[in-house]
């Protein structure tokens, strides 16, 4: 289906989120939309999919002007959107989720729908059990379910918002394959992302948004440098790799064994040295979460010893670890790391060692102003944390870290952030390393793991690899390992070394 946007304008208060946007997407195209956080990508897509209405402008589908009042209206016109947080019902079964969109009549016609579902899933080679519950699925599988449902509802334009965040390498491959197939059938695919590599490998055309405006369009072969410049209005270079350090051991794991509902891990040995960055790779739920929590004292190992700076802290609480200089930044920033409703100032005051009963407002304010400046947070001391964007919340969390620290543990430190924020956050983290802290982090972005780590541990359903030198490992190798392939070669290498 042909999609055309004409003169789209949208204001949120004083912010001009979409400023006179024209875009023409012929049927059968995979159109990439690039832009940093807050560039107006999501706003534009929400307008096209009926979640919000444009202040002015026109939408034409197959050259017919349409007015889209609601998401249901959009799907009626053949426009379906796949959101970053899947719009589904976790406690319900896959089939219930699937049939909700077309629930007519007094009783849902499960039999027919189940048949439709199986046929459609087979078409794309998705293995989804219609009777399983959605909360047992991975993000990638939930995405597949969502795609099937939108297609079943008659979508001929598919909008995907950051679909490669949080899914595995093989799921990404399958997603891209599916999208290419759909485009081949004459559907229009709109692929919103801030990941250049994804856009470059998938899209047949790219439009770049910056500060609400369409600043450029390109076709393959894509001029990468120019695209980056258009996204940020200037050139950005990734920081150079530093030589791996060989400082003293900060954290020693000796034969650590961990248990989860799903798996058991045992015999984990690791020395984390000062100034070093260790990346943990693996599909979500492969054991890296339990591992990092064990390093933080949040999970009690069932065996082995955890030694921090020479002190045996096995079985001690997070509090003791924290006093020993460990800090843990969890993935769900707002849920676990920040307190919604409290301002930045209040956070900084909370994080300081408390003295006395009353809050020293002026000191807190001064402290907050300093940190906001030092960490380049877009917000004021009085801003409630939930009003900050993801990148700024992450910066606030970094600013909350005490110093000096000997070990920083991070879970998905840059998930959902644009390149500029990613680079900024890593530059701040590397500063910590120079001051002698060690960093252990989890990321599903393999490039990030290889780019910033000195050594990498791979997790696959409870198995842990030996530390791999990041500089000698490729994305392909890592991708295979997290998918459970090539582990034999790893063991061989080990055996080799032992000889």
């Amino acid at each position, binding site marked *: 289906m042909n999609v055309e946007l004409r003169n789209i304008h949208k204001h949120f208060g004083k912010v001009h989120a979409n400023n006179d946007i024209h875009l023409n997407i012929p049927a059968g195209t995979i159109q990439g939309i690039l832009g940093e956080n807050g560039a107006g990508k999501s706003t534009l897509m929400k307008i096209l999919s009926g979640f919000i209405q444009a202040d002015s402008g026109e939408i034409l589908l197959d050259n017919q002007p349409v007015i889209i009042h609601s998401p249901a209206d959009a799907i009626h016109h053949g426009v379906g959107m796949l959101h970053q947080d899947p719009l589904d019902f976790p406690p*319900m079964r896959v089939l219930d989720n699937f049939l909700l969109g077309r629930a007519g009549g007094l009783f*849902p016609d499960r039999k027919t729908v189940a048949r439709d579902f199986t046929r459609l899933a087979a078409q794309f080679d998705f293995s989804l059990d219609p009777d399983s519950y959605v909360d047992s699925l991975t993000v990638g599988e939930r995405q597949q379910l969502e795609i099937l449902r939108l297609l079943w509802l008659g979508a001929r334009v598919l909008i995907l918002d950051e679909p490669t965040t949080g899914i595995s390498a093989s799921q990404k491959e399958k997603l891209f394959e599916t999208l290419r197939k759909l485009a081949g059938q004459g559907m229009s695919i709109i692929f919103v992302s801030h990941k250049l590599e994804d856009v470059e490998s998938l899209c047949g055309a790219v439009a770049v948004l910056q500060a609400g405006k369409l600043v450029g369009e390109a076709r393959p072969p894509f001029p990468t440098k120019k695209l980056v410049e258009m996204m940020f209005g200037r050139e950005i270079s990734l920081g150079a790799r530093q030589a791996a350090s060989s400082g003293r051991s900060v954290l020693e794991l000796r034969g650590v064994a961990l248990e989860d509902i799903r798996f058991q891990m045992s015999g984990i040995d690791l020395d984390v040295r000062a100034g070093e960055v260790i990346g943990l790779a693996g599909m979500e739920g492969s054991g890296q979460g339990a591992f990092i929590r064990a390093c933080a004292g949040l999970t009690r190992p069932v065996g082995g010893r955890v030694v921090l700076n020479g002190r045996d802290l096995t079985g001690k609480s997070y509090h003791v670890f924290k006093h020993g200089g460990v800090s843990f930044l969890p993935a769900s920033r707002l849920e676990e790391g920040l307190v919604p409703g409290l301002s930045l100032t209040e956070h900084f005051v909370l994080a300081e060692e408390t003295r006395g009963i009353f809050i020293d407002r002026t000191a807190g304010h001064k402290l907050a102003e300093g940190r906001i400046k030092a960490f380049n947070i877009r917000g004021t001391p009085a801003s409630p944390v939930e009003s900050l964007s993801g990148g700024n919340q992450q910066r606030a969390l970094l600013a909350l870290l005490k110093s000096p620290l000997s070990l920083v543990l991070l879970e998905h430190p840059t998930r959902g952030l644009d390149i500029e924020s990613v680079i900024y956050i890593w530059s701040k983290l590397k500063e910590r390393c120079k001051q002698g802290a060690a960093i252990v982090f989890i990321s599903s972005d393999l490039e990030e793991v290889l780019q910033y780590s000195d050594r990498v541990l791979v997790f696959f359903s409870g198995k842990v690899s030996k530390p791999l030198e990041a500089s000698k490992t490729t994305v392909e190798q890592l991708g295979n390992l997290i998918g459970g392939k090539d582990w034999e070669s790893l063991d061989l290498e080990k055996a080799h070394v032992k000889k």
Partner: protein
Amino acid sequence: MISDLFSTTVLIGILASGIRLATPYLYASIGEVFGQKSGVLNLGIEGQMLLGAFAAFYVALTTGNLWLGVLVAMIVGAVMGLAMAFVTVNLRAQQGISGIGFYLFGMGVSDLLFQKLLGTVETVKGFPKIFIPGLSDIPGVGEIFFSQNLLVYIAYLLVPIAWFVLNKTTLGLKIRSVGENPDAADSLGVSVARIRYFTIILGGILSAVAGASLSIALLNVFQQNMTSGLGFIAVALVYFGAWKPAGVLGGALLFSMINSLQLWIQVLGIPIPSDIAVMMPYVLTILVLVAAVSRVRAPSALTKPFERED
């Protein structure tokens, strides 16, 4: 004497009145299950019950027609539900607070009407017991289960009906989807507002019938604040029952049996201070709720107003 409690007659009496006393809990809690499944917490049940109880009693007293009493109570409940739905859905009020408002409103108005229209406690001839040939003749069982009045039977019938509607019908699927993820439901063309209006009004009607069951089927009187917290226990029962009609039935029976026991303790003159006896069901509420905490997850969108972002 305590040993009096263990005679067959007394045991049958305790069980039979336990079955009967579960009636108002069942109506009110089943209505609340529908509301909460769609993401709406109705704390105003008590007020809706009191108004329903008064309406049914007054109509029954003045016209002598019990069914007309029930019908008027249902209309009153529907109007209360409609107002609640408007406040909840359109004005997006904080549900905990607005519910308390509706409770106080219902209590105040029923009190006022009682003083203006009745003035003194009167009695009405309530729904008669209905005996089912064959079943009612079974010794013990017949007396406990099958010598109740029609409103009691209907209350128990509601349990499987509610389960069926919630789990097997398209309407039930929509209700659950709205309570779980209204944004997603909206994107699929389910009208969040319409579903919530429906469940809140249904809840109002059932709460009013719960009140009517007290005033013209169980106690056959109307007094000021005669529900004495029953509506709030009904809310607690929904949590206790993990949002399942069968769970609610179990909770309702537990409370009504304890209640029945304490009534018989007083009737038989067993030397337990009556204050303590009366307290029993309420203490049990607290204990059971503490035990039931976090057993099952509540509907994700419970108490959250829905608004399409703009």
